[in-house]
């Protein structure tokens, strides 16, 4: 092997086969469509949802375990090795994660929808094994990485949260059968906090330290403020989870206040990255990202209002929607539509020899339709909760469904590009 070949062999190993990250993105896009269908069917009780098995809980898990987790895993397995300069230990475990997680998530969600405890437990066990396998791969890569201490710290935070999240999730599923938890609602809230802010939140905040400067072409955020941001974010999650498990409103209130500080620090870092970046026109994806940041800033405030009863009886439902559907879903869909063409360009070679231009990849009209529908749908759901209107929730779900179909069309156009490139090869 030549020296060049040796270099290529070593470096290329960080670029996974396209089918590996894309299977997660396709699953996320499909489950995104199913999510809005589920919201449509759950519109009757969605606006007053406080937990408990049924269509609304199924819709929530379609969002979290379906769309958010699939997107996060697809992005993490490809971007983490590039960011840490350490390849994943092997590719087959990622495929195993997919084949455990997809059927597991479907079984769990169908079990929740149909109130079938056996299906829920089977789905929870398969999802748990899949997520723990992913956690193992993830933490192995973090352990071997020598650079980017802040991103690694967020990664460790996400890992610990994921382990606790799946443990509590499994306990909640088993509790539906044997009823051993003293405070099911408290554990469910801790599970929600770990999922939204621990696992997904830490991943979103951590990867933002790489992705946002990468897209804006700016320097990495200042280390000291980034470290401070991580410390406050981690403390927020710890306080929130402890408060939920102990049923202590005081701790939950403190978590919300600390959450305001954590969000402010993060948004300040992101604002500096955008302001100092070489690329000013960041396109539609960043419109979604900016909207998600507004909702990130609102999340702890809505949480505080819900805790103190200032947001009315539907405050907790509003908090769940703003954090999961508003901040995280909007952010991940914005990032996904940005990284999918980027990853595709690495796998596709034009007839002229180089990678295709990013502007050549994927249809842009569906993304515009999706962005408009997504914003209208989330706004509609907020209105539905405030007005306690099932009709408004159903209309919002229909608009969301149109947006999800448009997003799936975009992913399909990317797959077509990938498939034709592989046929040529």
């Amino acid at each position: 092997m030549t020296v060049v070949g040796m270099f290529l062999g070593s470096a290329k190993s960080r670029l996974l086969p396209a089918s590996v990250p894309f299977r997660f993105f396709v699953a996320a896009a499909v489950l995104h469509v199913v999510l809005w269908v589920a919201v449509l069917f759950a519109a009757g009780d969605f606006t007053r949802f406080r937990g408990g098995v049924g269509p609304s809980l199924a819709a929530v898990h379609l969002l979290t375990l379906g769309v958010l987790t699939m997107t996060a895993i697809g992005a993490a397995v490809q971007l983490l090795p590039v960011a840490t300069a350490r390849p994943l230990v092997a590719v087959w475990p990622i495929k195993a994660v997919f084949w455990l997680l997809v059927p597991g998530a479907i079984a769990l969600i169908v079990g929740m929808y149909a109130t079938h405890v056996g299906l829920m437990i089977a789905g929870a066990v398969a999802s748990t094994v899949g997520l723990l396998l992913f956690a193992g791969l993830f933490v192995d890569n973090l352990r071997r990485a020598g650079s980017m201490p802040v991103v690694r710290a967020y990664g460790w935070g996400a890992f610990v949260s994921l382990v606790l999240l799946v443990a509590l999730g499994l306990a909640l599923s088993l509790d539906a059968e044997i009823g051993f938890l003293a405070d099911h609602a408290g554990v469910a809230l801790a599970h929600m906090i770990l999922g939204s802010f621990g696992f997904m939140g830490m991943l979103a905040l951590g990867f933002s330290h790489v992705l946002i400067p990468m897209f804006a072409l700016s320097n990495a955020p200042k280390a000291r403020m980034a470290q401070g941001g991580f410390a406050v974010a981690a403390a927020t999650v710890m306080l929130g989870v402890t408060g939920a498990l102990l049923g202590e409103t005081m701790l939950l209130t403190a978590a919300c206040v600390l959450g305001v500080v954590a969000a402010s620090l993060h948004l300040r870092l992101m604002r500096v990255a955008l302001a100092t970046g070489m690329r000013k026109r960041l396109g539609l994806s960043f419109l979604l990202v900016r909207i998600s940041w507004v909702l990130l800033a609102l999340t702890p405030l809505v949480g505080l209002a819900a805790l103190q009863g200032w947001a009315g009886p539907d405050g907790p439902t509003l908090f769940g929607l703003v954090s999961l559907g508003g901040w995280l879903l909007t952010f991940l869909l914005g990032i996904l539509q940005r990284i999918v063409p980027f990853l595709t360009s690495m796998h596709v070679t034009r007839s002229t020899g180089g990678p295709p231009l990013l502007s050549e990849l994927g249809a842009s009209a569906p993304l515009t339709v999706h962005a408009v529908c997504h914003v209208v749908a989330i706004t509609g759901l907020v209105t539905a909760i405030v007005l306690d209107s099932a009709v408004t929730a159903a209309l919002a779900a229909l608009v969301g469904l149109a947006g999800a179909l448009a997003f799936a069309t975009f992913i399909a156009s990317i797959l077509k590009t990938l498939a034709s490139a592989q046929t040529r090869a």
Partner: protein
Amino acid sequence: MTNGTGAHDGARLWRAQDGLHIDVRGLPCPEPLVTLLRLIDGGEAGEVLLAHLSQEPLLLYPELEERGWCCRLIAASGESSPRDGDVVLKIVRSPL
């Protein structure tokens, strides 16, 4: 043969007979990408830029293509022995 050294955003910069060299190894992601593009966009890269990197810069390729630059991986140049994964990328304004 080297003539002139300097630093650019924490990267080592020097000019040799074969073009402008920049060593961005050890910089955290996405600093290598940003540093190289800043040189190119700022016009300091000239016609040929040789970038010493700690891994193949997968994220850089679409950016170079957008700017009408070409690149190819070449063997590491003499002065330092490459670590596992280190690459040297030759980036030129016109097609190779």
